């Protein structure tokens, strides 16, 4: 199965400004487990690419926050998740039929409990 994780940066990743609870190590682990990973942030695309370089990881995508729909179109997957610290992140996820975690929830790495062979996207309920 293909499951996509979209990371907001500021307030979510530890390299963000302000730093969030999701460490580079967690992102690396998600990649190693087989998730499609990338970022979706208000930071300029070029800055997002630079941050991935600093993490020594290669993202499948970088995206502006309002272009989450494009991420879906360009990255076929069976389930999509976005995580972030702002209403804007939540709305972007909701509007584009992504699952969503608030940044503090994401820091618990809920994706590590997924069955990578049989997973159904957890809908946004709130």
């Amino acid at each position, binding site marked *: 199965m293909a499951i996509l994780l979209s990371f907001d940066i500021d307030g979510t990743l530890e390299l963000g400004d302000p730093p969030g609870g999701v460490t580079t190590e967690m992102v690396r682990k998600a990649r190693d487990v087989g998730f499609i990973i990338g970022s979706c942030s208000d930071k300029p695309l070029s800055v997002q690419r630079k941050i991935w370089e600093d993490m020594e990881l290669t993202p499948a995508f970088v995206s502006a926050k*309002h272009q989450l729909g494009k991420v879906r179109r360009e990255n076929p997957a069976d389930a999509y998740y976005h995580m972030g610290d702002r*209403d*804007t992140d939540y*709305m972007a996820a909701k509007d584009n039929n992504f699952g969503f975690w608030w940044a503090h929830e994401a820091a618990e790495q809920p994706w590590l409990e997924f069955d990578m062979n049989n997973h159904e996207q957890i809908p946004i309920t709130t």
Partner: protein
Amino acid sequence: MARPIVPVPDPATQPFWDACNEGKLIVQYCSVCDRRQFPPEAACRDCGFNFHLTWQETSGRAKIVGYSITYDSRLVQWHPLQPFLNVIVALEEDPVINFHTNLIDDFGTNLSEEPDIPIGATCEVQFVEAEPGRMIPEWKLVK
């Protein structure tokens, strides 16, 4: 529909909101300066006095001046409705006087597609309930 944020009247604006509850759109008018004034102030901005400052009912008709669409407001209560439309209309009989509207009847909020905002198109006022007992002016396009 309850509005995200409701206005709290103060002495200067109470007559305006009371009139809204009666279905009337009123603005201040200084009879000696022959000048309308909105938003309401304690005195006429021209002569500096309140002697001739009264309230005058408007035609309730206006034309669209321009618009914006809010995607990311600092007003937290509005977040669930993003993106939403912000339109400015100018009173037909006195284009200096303008009003806010979200044109809710025609375009709603959570805009899903590009709105067609015809600049210069005529609108008329309608009153919508911001909360029980509190009507506020909104505007709709005259077809």
